[in-house]
Structure formats: structure tokens, C-alpha cells
């Protein structure tokens, strides 16, 4: 019993704050997305708030400092905190220019409280926008393109 207690105490110590987080190196392919619209549903279904349909809104949210995500092909979302040496993930220029692009990224993964965070060390490939879903969903939201008739 005493051994079990010490083991539990050791486990508690390991789970507590203040210790360096253990990252895992990963390579992941997917689309750079606007996480607020994707998670909140404020602009529509998850399929509508990605790709070319949502490109302009993704620019707005990225420039506005909303966390940018990497939506992997299996549906996992990785919150991007850094790209290369640029840690300005809240409104910085590097991520702004990748909005809605399909990329392959190499970086360090940190998992905490149900979310996955990635610090991208290298964008291995940038295929620009491959998810051309505007024919299915239009432009989302509809005011993202100003009406030329007004």
C-alpha cells in the first residue's frame, strides 16, 4: 500500500504544472484553417468554412489574431503556435499568407487538455488552395465578397 501511495504521489508530481512539456516530432498534411468559424459554427457547417469558399474570412480571422489551425486529412485539428522562427501566431504575416492553403508541415506536437498544439519547424510543401469548394458553398459568409452592384 505504501508503495502504491508513493507511486500515486509521483504521478501527481508528474501531472502538475511547472514541468517542461514533452513534445513529439510529427509530419502532418492538411489545410490551414480559421479555427473559430470551424469550431463555433457561427458561419455554417465545418465543410463550408474551409477552402476557397472561406478564403477571405480565413484572412480576416488570421489577421484578427484568432488561432490558426492545421486541419489534417483525418479531421484532427492542430493549433499552430509557431512557424519556423515566427511565433507571431496571433495576427502575424507568415500564417496570414498560408490561409486556406494545403500544406505539409514538420514540427513538434504538444497535447494538453483535449487540444493538439503544433510548433511548425518547416513547411515542407505549400500546394496553395486545393480545396475549391466555392462552387458547392458559394462565398462564406456571403458578405465576404462586396456586392459590386451596391
Amino acid at each position, binding site marked *: 500500500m505504501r508503495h502504491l*501511495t508513493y507511486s500515486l504521489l509521483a504521478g*501527481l508530481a508528474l501531472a502538475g504544472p511547472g514541468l517542461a512539456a514533452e513534445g513529439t516530432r510529427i509530419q502532418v498534411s492538411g489545410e490551414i484553417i480559421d479555427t*473559430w468559424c470551424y*469550431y463555433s459554427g*457561427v458561419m455554417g457547417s*465545418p465543410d463550408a468554412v474551409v477552402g476557397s469558399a472561406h478564403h477571405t474570412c480565413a484572412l480576416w480571422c488570421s489577421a*484578427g489574431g484568432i488561432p490558426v489551425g492545421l486541419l489534417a486529412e483525418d479531421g484532427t485539428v492542430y493549433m499552430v503556435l509557431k512557424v519556423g522562427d515566427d*511565433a507571431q501566431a496571433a495576427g502575424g504575416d507568415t500564417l496570414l499568407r498560408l490561409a486556406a492553403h494545403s500544406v505539409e508541415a514538420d514540427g513538434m506536437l504538444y497535447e494538453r487538455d483535449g487540444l493538439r498544439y503544433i510548433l511548425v519547424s518547416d513547411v515542407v510543401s505549400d500546394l496553395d488552395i486545393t480545396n475549391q469548394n466555392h462552387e458547392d458553398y458559394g462565398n462564406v459568409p456571403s458578405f465576404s465578397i462586396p456586392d459590386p452592384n451596391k
Partner: protein
Amino acid sequence: MLKHLTALVALIATPLAAQDFSEGSEARSWNLYAEVPAKFEAKVVDLVCEFTGDCPADCGAGKRQLGLLRTADDVLVLAMKNSQPAFTGAAVELQPFCNQVITVDGLLIDDPELGARNVYLVQTIVPPGATETIKANQWTKSWAAEHPEAAGKGPWFRRDPEIKEIIETEGYLGLGLEVDEAFIAENF
């Protein structure tokens, strides 16, 4: 000994159990499918610092993503959105309280199907030692101060120089100006 062990196991298990932070919350609904009002005390942390030990004293001056390390259960909440309905994040609102313990009120988004857990829209902040609440709505003022050259009418996101430059070269759909032209001709 058994009693102590039970208490220890309960202590370990606490962060794993879903807790209700809606008590006392005065958060305004955004009518979102998965929103849950939540008011809690938390330490403002720089997420890159939290994971890697790279810790500028100012938590990145509002340009790094920030988290809220909740006092009650040590859960790290991602601060995703401020209170303005204007495509604006939370880092600028929280950065003045870098590494300080504050009380926030707002909306958690909890949608397991999409993997949304512990993400948060901050509506109000009570600074350390204060009793009065401040609104988390300073982003647009901060943007205007950074971009005096973009002063004018209309929302910030129509006037932002970087956004305008990308749209002028890649189009609203991001596929080039010719694709935009055809889409606009067909849909407007």
C-alpha cells in the same frame, strides 16, 4: 491509509471530470450550437512559453497565442476569441495580464464531434485585485493605433493593408482574379 488513498485518487481524478463553471457567469449568448457560459479564475500564459520554455517577459506583446491556466483544475484553456463580433482574437485583450491571475467570463465551446474542447470566447476580465469588470473589446482600437494609414470608414477587415494586398493579388476566393471575376459575374 485507505481514506488518504481515496482522497489522493479523487484529487488526481478531479481534472479529468467535466466541471461546471457556469455558476455566476453573466456571459451573453452568441447562440452558438456548442456554447457553455463559463466564469473562472485563471493565470494568463504564453502558450509557446508553456510548451517550450521560450518566455518573453511580455508574453509576445499580443502577437503570440495565449492560454488561461484555470486555477480550479489546472486545465489549460485556449483563449480563441474576444467579445467583438469582428473576426478578432483574444491575445490582445489578455496580454496586459501576462502571467497574472485574473477572472474571466465568457463562453466555452464544447463540441466533442469536432474536437473542440477547452476553447474560449472571452467577454469580460476582472484584473488582479480589482472588483470592476472590463470588457474584452480592445482589439479594434489596438489595430487602429497600429494602422493609422488605414484610417477611414467601414470595418477594419476591409481596410487592413495586408488583407487588401492578398485579395488584390489572389482574389477573394484565393484562386486568382480570373476565377473571382467569373464567380462574381455568375453570383451577383
